């Protein structure tokens, strides 16, 4: 495989390559690389580490605390988000984390306690590459989602339509493939779902359940919530709706109807085997078409994680990630609403664009200790472990192949291209940092 295609694959299937990773894959067959990605992700699930352990600073005997302990107590959601981001940056089994991030986009939930949020995240990660059937059954019963969509006190005398509506509209079928009456009938079937507030375990309260006959999507019976989910999964439209979302996240915002139909068959026939669907996408020729390369806008998580992987600069501190992601519009476990986060150009507004394109300046200023007091960094109480990356060449290998980069740079103002052409690749490290700064603050770095 060519460098440009390997980089494309790793940006989409993961969070970009780390320095010197490219040479491990150049020249290998596509099948081998895709299998590596899948096997690496499926071998075993990395554990979320939520310990307050220290992080060693490279080339120094110093250690920095992972989190400010006072803040860890106050902001446990932030701790959880950081633990997950750490896994993404570490880059082991990266496709699992990327797919779990997709599921967090697609089955969004927010505003719940640390314990409930952790259960929810572990479900997304566990079933990320498995069967969507298992995932949606599990997510429907996880207390975080039940609470988020008010399904934990739905009673036969007052069925709650919130969860069934979003299940049909957003999670599985899409608008136009069910009626308002279907929502009402489904709501009756979900009555009696409860969870134990001490153990956070789901249970079924028969006395609150509507035992009557429901008519849902043309079928009638004494359906339970599980039956409703199975009936939905039996619709090919469910596979189509999911394939569309996955295509928009991994391939392109503009859908190709022929490919969507083909992938829908693959997903439906495999009974929603997500790993198989992704394999089909990553092994295809069209996935590597020029039209798709750099056609997406990085999500804020992809941007921050990718930056850390490529530069090996490490952002530390709960508030560092949290504030930056918040200002960029993607606080984890706090989506704006059940519709999830925006996509494409919608990520870009006059607030987010400043943080998205300028955070590298702050980061490097901090790493070089040239940052003014009272700056963003100072307010964030963050620390950044110094970068191990000392070569612009390695960085460029991680983001893009150099020829394409220079092509892009020809669109930059003349002085910039001159800067890059004249840059001494073997020169002193400060020069390399400048180069990385130039590139990471350019609009192209926002693309995925």
């Amino acid at each position: 495989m060519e460098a440009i295609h390997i980089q494309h694959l790793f940006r989409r299937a993961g969070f970009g390559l780390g320095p010197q990773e490219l040479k491990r894959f150049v020249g290998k067959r596509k099948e081998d690389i895709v299998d590596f990605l899948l096997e690496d992700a499926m071998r075993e699930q990395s554990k979320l580490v939520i310990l307050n352990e220290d992080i060693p600073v490279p080339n120094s005997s110093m250690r920095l605390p992972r989190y400010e302990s006072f803040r860890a107590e106050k902001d446990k959601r932030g701790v959880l988000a950081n633990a997950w981001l750490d896994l993404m940056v570490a880059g082991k089994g990266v496709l699992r984390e990327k797919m779990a991030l997709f599921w967090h986009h697609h089955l969004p939930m927010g505003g719940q306690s640390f314990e409930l949020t952790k259960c929810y995240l572990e479900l997304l990660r566990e079933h990320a590459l498995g069967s969507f059937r298992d995932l949606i059954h599990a997510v429907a019963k996880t207390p975080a989602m039940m609470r988020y969509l008010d399904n934990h006190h739905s009673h036969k005398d007052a069925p709650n339509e919130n969860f069934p509506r979003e299940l049909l509209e957003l999670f599985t079928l899409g608008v136009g493939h069910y009626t308002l009456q279907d929502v009402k009938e489904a709501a009756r079937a979900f009555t009696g779902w409860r969870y134990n507030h001490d153990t956070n375990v789901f249970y079924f309260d028969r006395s609150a359940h509507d035992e009557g006959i429901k008519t849902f999507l043309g079928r009638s019976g004494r359906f339970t919530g599980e039956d409703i989910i199975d009936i939905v999964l039996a619709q090919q439209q469910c596979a189509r709706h999911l394939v569309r979302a996955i295509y928009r996240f991994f391939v392109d915002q503009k859908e190709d109807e022929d490919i969507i139909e083909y992938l829908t068959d693959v997903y439906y026939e495999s009974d929603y085997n997500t790993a198989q669907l992704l394999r089909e996408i990553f092994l295809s020729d069209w996935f590597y078409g020029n039209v798709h390369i750099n056609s997406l806008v990085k999500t804020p998580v992809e941007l921050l994680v990718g930056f850390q992987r490529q530069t090996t600069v490490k952002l530390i501190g709960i508030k560092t990630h949290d504030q930056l992601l918040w200002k960029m519009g993607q606080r984890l476990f706090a989506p704006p609403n059940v519709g999830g986060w925006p996509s494409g150009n919608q990520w870009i507004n006059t607030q987010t664009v400043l943080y998205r394109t300028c955070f590298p300046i702050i980061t490097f200023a901090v790493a070089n200790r040239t940052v003014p007091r009272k700056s963003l960094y100072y307010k964030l109480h963050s620390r950044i472990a110094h970068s191990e990356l000392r070569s612009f060449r390695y960085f460029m290998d991680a983001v893009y192949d150099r020829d394409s980069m220079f092509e892009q740079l020809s669109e930059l103002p003349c002085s910039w291209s001159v800067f890059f052409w004249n840059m001494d690749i073997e020169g002193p490290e400060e020069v390399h940092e400048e180069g990385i700064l130039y590139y990471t603050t350019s609009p192209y770095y926002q693309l995925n």
Partner: protein
Amino acid sequence: MDRRRFIQNSAYLAVGTTFVPQLLASCGTDTIKRFRGKRLVLLHLQGGNDGLNTFVPWRNDIYYASRPNLAIAKHELIELTDELATPVWAQDLADLYFDGCMALYHNVGSPQPNTSHFKSTDIWHAAFTPNERANPRTGWIGRYLDMASRKSEVPPSTLAVDASETFSLLLKGENIQGCTIGGLRDFSHFAPYLEELYSTCHEHPVASYLQKVRSEAIVAMRTLHQYFSPNAFDYPPSVLGASLAQVASLIKNGAPTLFFFITQGGYDTHLAQPGRQKRLLSELGAGLKAFVRDLRAAGLFKDTLVLIYSEFGRRVKENVNMGTDHGVGNTICILSDGLKRAGSCNELPDLNTLAHRNDVAVHMDFRRVYATVLEKWLGVPAPSVLPGHFEVLDFV
């Protein structure tokens, strides 16, 4: 920019605070135009404020019967009229009412209400009901910006400022969007570097869009930076107080901004409402009182209109957790020295005939307020921004 210039710019980072503001300030102090026109401040009480416990129908028996635990006792009320009162912890609001700079409209809401915070906030900010447009992409102020940008002498983004922490749909237009002042705080140190970035053009459609928005953001930041000054007035030390102080500073120094958006969060009082609402309302009253005093001293409150609203009201009947659940109709509050009509302007909620789930019914489409502001305050035809024609009110 060559490498030497770049390194010089990096040096700014090291020199920091003392140097950079001067550089920013030097970009055209003599060209500053001081705007002296009508302005609108939108203050969103996030979470759904309980209007019935803010502006209390103190003669209504149904109010007391529906809220055995939450109704505010008569000895804790300040009478505004012979049927309306505010709790004593909203003394500052009562003072503004007696000043004659407050207009209240009751039973206001969307003709097609929604009890989700997010969806309902979108309805209020887009000014579209879900039937009219299911997934609105623009806010009503954003659409105003689109229209006004054609003849604007200042960077159009500076016409609307979001002083909340995130960027609201309210200020998003199809082509133009308002700007935030959060970025101004965080990035003014880096402005010299940013300015090097924004003059290029790109062929890639997404990259060029990004570049366009970034240019707008940086230009807006540069422009507005000139209008900030330390505030001499005492504002309460809350987040709301800080936002109001910033807005007042921009207004007093003649910033070109017409619209300001501010939020105060925490009104979603399903649980333990009395203590929480008490704290929020006293914070709100203190902030507004300082703001009014500040602008009045500068003679500018007659040209400033503050519109205070929530995404929905709360249920009439209290719940079992000493709180109230999401409702529908609510009271909105308008503040200005330029009001033609002040006081309580229409009928109080009719608690005898409630909407479907024990909710205050909507008798006034919230967009009538927007239409009034557009037509009679800002002097632009409302249908150019709002979906259709809405009967105007007489508060201005």
